[in-house]
């Protein structure tokens, strides 16, 4: 099953074509949230056409951040990049682009256009060509050192002058070292020396941040180390654009986070999912001994992620957990699992329950007396990420990769917690909040999720289990512990025997939604007796639980039984330590207790939920 739907990129384009972007500016951050770098670049060009004043006429409260761009070379690509990055945070860019080649004058002359614009941020972009064009021919290492020293002195002077004369923040960057510099020197010692001189200049630039309060020095090395190209030779040679568009986009991203910080929108709280986010596996199914958090390959990756969360928390970021789990096993893992880095006391709140996650986040925001827009939410599930994006658009959502080795990068890819200073008070904050927040677990209330489910496009396919399904159905019976009504474990041969017997059948549950195909997620084991149809077992992966799938499937089975002339449908439930969430499954949908089983008289079958579209394909006259 594949489901096509409009993407955020096409939605943005549709608004642009209709001339309705300004009116709909509050929707823009949501549309940009899931775009990749290429999509964001495209969006930036479209958004850069918007007049900030027109947006403000429609939405007077939209914060405007003035950013002046000056520096060496052609920098016009920074304007759309900055436009997109600020728009991601709901901010409006008021750009001032300096004239080509005149950054020295523009920064020194307090009557220049960029000073008169009174920007909140001035970017002075430095590139290696400004050093190279100072070199004589032939040149040696000392020539390079001299040229570097001059540039560092220049920037030092500009920074001092800026700080004494201007409000706002000055942003400069370190200089990427082109291979064309080192490789022109043929002996290893000279190469090493020029490399050292270059790094000393960059270190001097970075140290300027120690002496100037309102100077931000962007270190480009970590960005380059992740494979972002420093330059594109054709654009550098022919268009004097000496830094690549991709690198400028990364610098714009950093300035976007600075702008968010300057407008008081810094993120304060990191809300983590648990299963397959801070440990591998599903606690409810795999048990404390089965989750991966230390010695296995994947376990080491999850442990590394926990260490990063702990490091962030040491700088004042509040940690919270929001997990679909029963609270007791979670508490047990946090208290006594030997491999865990994060412990109960590291979290200001652990919400382990079966409520929709956005309810937990809203409740957490109230308890912490923070806005939900100060939250960063991390989850491996596209469903949960989509739910939070829809229900709480202010929350920054980090959707983790399927490979846990990439989770640290996913979390740190964006500088959500970037701030100008960390104070002692910040460092003490987590402990203070822990003391104030009363831990509590919540009752199940699923009402507030309906709007999201209506948009989710849940499709369910209920069909007789075929030979091809048998291994997966067997695996579900062996691995599923939570939504497993009788926890009867079955090997493939057992499933096959059940499916082939004359009085019984097995149904496979497949589901899909707008995020994609979930595959075979559950099974129903039926047996026909003289007194009616018996649901001997039903199981559903907890990944798709509580979206109406179980209710739709049960309604289909009840309808089938009535069509077949059955007098009643019987249901079995055998309690275990882990399947408490389905203890009231049958009574919730109209069954009455009948001894140790449950009985539905088929007179009044609950309507299946409207948001689920179910196709049923088991032949008539089968059990």
């Amino acid at each position, binding site marked *: 099953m594949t489901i096509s739907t409009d993407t955020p990129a096409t939605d943005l384009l549709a608004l*642009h074509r209709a001339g309705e972007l300004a009116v709909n500016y509050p929707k823009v951050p949501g549309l940009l949230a899931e775009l990749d770098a290429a999509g964001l670049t495209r969006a930036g*060009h*479209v958004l*850069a*056409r918007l007049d900030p004043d027109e947006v403000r006429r429609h939405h007077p409260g939209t914060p405007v951040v003035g950013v002046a761009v000056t520096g060496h070379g*052609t920098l016009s690509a920074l304007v759309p990049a900055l436009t997109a990055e600020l728009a991601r945070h709901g901010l409006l860019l008021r750009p001032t682009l300096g004239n080509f080649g005149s950054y020295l004058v523009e920064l020194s002359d307090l009557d220049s256009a960029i000073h008169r614009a009174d920007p909140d941020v001035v970017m002075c972009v430095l590139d290696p060509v400004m050093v190279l064009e100072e070199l004589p021919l032939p040149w040696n290492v000392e020539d390079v050192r001299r040229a570097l020293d001059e540039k560092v002195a220049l920037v030092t002077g500009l920074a001092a002058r800026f700080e004494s004369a201007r409000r706002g923040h000055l942003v400069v960057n370190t200089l990427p070292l082109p291979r064309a510099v080192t490789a022109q020197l043929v002996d290893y010692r000279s190469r090493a020396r020029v490399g050292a001189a270059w790094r000393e200049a960059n270190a001097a630039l970075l140290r300027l941040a120690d002496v100037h309060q309102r100077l931000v020095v962007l270190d480009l090395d970590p960005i380059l180390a992740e494979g972002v190209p420093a330059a594109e030779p054709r654009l550098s040679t022919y*268009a004097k*654009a000496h830094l690549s568009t991709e690198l400028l986009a990364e610098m714009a991203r950093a300035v976007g986070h600075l702008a968010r910080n300057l407008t008081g929108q810094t993120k304060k709280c990191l809300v983590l999912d648990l299963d397959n986010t801070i440990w591998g596996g599903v606690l409810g199914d795999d048990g404390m001994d089965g989750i991966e958090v230390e010695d296995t390959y994947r376990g080491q990756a999850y442990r590394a992620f926990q260490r990063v969360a702990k490091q962030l928390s040491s700088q004042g970021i509040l940690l919270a957990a929001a997990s679909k789990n029963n609270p007791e096993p979670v508490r047990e893992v946090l208290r006594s699992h030997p491999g865990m880095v994060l412990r109960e006391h590291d979290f200001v709140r652990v919400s382990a329950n079966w409520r929709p996650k956005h309810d937990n986040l809203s409740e957490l925001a109230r308890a912490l007396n923070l806005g939900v827009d100060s939250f960063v939410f991390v989850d491996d599930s596209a469903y949960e990420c989509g739910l939070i994006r829809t229900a709480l658009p202010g929350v920054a959502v980090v959707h983790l990769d399927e490979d846990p080795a990439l989770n640290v990068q996913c979390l740190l890819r964006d500088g959500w917690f970037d701030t100008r200073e960390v104070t002692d008070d910040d460092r003490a904050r987590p402990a203070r909040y822990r003391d104030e927040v009363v831990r509590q677990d919540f009752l199940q209330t699923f009402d507030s999720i309906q709007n999201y489910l209506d948009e989710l496009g849940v499709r369910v396919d209920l069909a007789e289990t075929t030979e091809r399904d048998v291994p997966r159905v067997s695996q579900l019976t062996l691995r599923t512990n939570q939504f497993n009504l009788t926890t009867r474990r079955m090997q493939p041969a057992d499933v096959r025997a059940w499916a082939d017997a004359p009085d019984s059948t097995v149904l496979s549950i497949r589901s899909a939604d707008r995020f994609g195909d979930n595959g075979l997620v559950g099974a129903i084991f039926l047996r026909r007796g003289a007194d009616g149809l018996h649901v001997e077992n039903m199981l559903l992966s907890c990944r798709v639980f509580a979206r109406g799938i179980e209710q739709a499937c049960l309604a289909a089975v009840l309808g089938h039984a009535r069509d077949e002339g059955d007098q009643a449908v019987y249901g079995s439930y055998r309690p275990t330590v882990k399947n408490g969430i389905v203890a009231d499954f049958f009574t919730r949908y109209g069954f009455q207790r009948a001894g140790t089983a449950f009985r539905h008289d088929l007179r009044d079958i609950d309507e299946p939920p409207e948001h689920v579209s179910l196709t049923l394909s088991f032949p008539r006259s089968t059990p």
Partner: protein
Amino acid sequence: MNSIDDLIAIVRDELGLPITDEDAEAGFDQLAGWDSVHLLRLVTVLESTTGRRMSLPAVLEADSLADVYALATQ
């Protein structure tokens, strides 16, 4: 890219410029909102659309979208 209309559509959607089919032959100096950044961006987009590298010096000497179209499809 099968016709200059496709190029016009790219300019509208990728660069956000409100141009019409009649603007294909017009000089860049006649296009409302046009500046050199658009030309560089256009080359990037066209190269990824056609899978072929364009001559940047030739593009920088182009006077109109019709010129660019000719370079992208030659």
